[in-house]
């Protein structure tokens, strides 16, 4: 193993991240090469020096409580997500059923030519699409609330 390769591995070696044959080769090299041994010693020195500078800071006792008060606990409520999904589905199904019932109960062939009948159909369609929009609005708002992320105040 050459010096450059050993030098590149020294931080990892000291972190215990190198194993097996590579580790053996590095250790063999370090026994023979003073330059690399010097490098390793410097990293070790730095570790001792800097470790002594690290400050331990404790979070306040109420920190976790504060975090819990500031996160959206509903964010990952799968059961409610399903409920919203079902509500949306039921809504769409009801609208579909309405259209089908309307189509079955009216004899479209007869009414088609009459302008009065056409305006009635138009009105119904508008009404139905209005209801779909309304449903989307409700579920959209619920979903926004569920997945809307951050509360403002920290």
């Amino acid at each position, binding site marked *: 193993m050459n010096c450059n390769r050993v030098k590149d591995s020294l931080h990892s070696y000291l*972190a215990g991240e190198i194993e097996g044959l590579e580790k053996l080769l590095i250790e063999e090299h370090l026994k023979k090469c003073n330059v690399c041994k010097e490098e390793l*010693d410097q990293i070790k020195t730095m570790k001792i020096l800097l470790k002594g500078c690290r400050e331990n800071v404790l979070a306040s006792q109420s920190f976790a409580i504060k975090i819990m008060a500031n996160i959206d606990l509903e964010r990952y409520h799968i059961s409610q997500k399903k409920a919203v999904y079902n509500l949306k589905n039921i809504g769409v199904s009801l609208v579909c059923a309405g259209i089908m019932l309307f189509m079955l109960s009216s004899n479209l062939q007869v009414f088609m030519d009459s302008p009065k009948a056409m305006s009635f159909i138009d009105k119904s369609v508008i009404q139905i699409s209005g209801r779909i929009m309304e449903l989307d609005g409700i579920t959209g708002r619920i979903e926004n609330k569920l997945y809307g992320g951050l509360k403002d105040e920290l």
Partner: protein
Amino acid sequence: MEKLKDEEIIALILKGKTQLYAELVLRYQNKLFSTIYNYTHDFEETRDLGQEIFIKVYNNLHKYNNKASFSTWLYRIAVNSCIDWTRKKRLTTVSTFETDENEEIAILEHISDSTFSPEDILLKEEHKTVLKEMIMDLPEIYKTAVILYYYEDFSPREISDILNIPKKTIDSRLYRAKDILKSKIINMEYGGGAFEL
């Protein structure tokens, strides 16, 4: 009760048991606070950044995959917040890091490596303050590598995962950081005898 693994807790949170997030906060709050404090040296900033990070982590929990350990993933978010903080801070305050890097290399070349050995290290309180200031004044890329490697005991591989930067780059940053610090320490030793190495 057997202690749940981080990953098990996350799975439960994602199934709706969101109250369990408190357990993750309790597990990591002190470690994270220490890292942030050693990064900022400011208690208020530490508290604010800590809060910001834990809320961000919660809001992104569904994006966590088990590829990396939770602690690596948490640190990825935390370190990015610290780096952002450093950049914002540097924009609003005058950086104390005004040293010419070339000058430092020159100093290094003229100083014998034998003066820097692990034996007979005596680190007095006032030396610690000077050293801490040296780390604070490092350019951000070195400072981050130093804090993660020397303070938090992450390996170069883990640091590369946290920063999403090739391991080779981390290795060279760690070398460069070590050499900058070494030259400053030795320089100080010759200048005022602050360290007994």
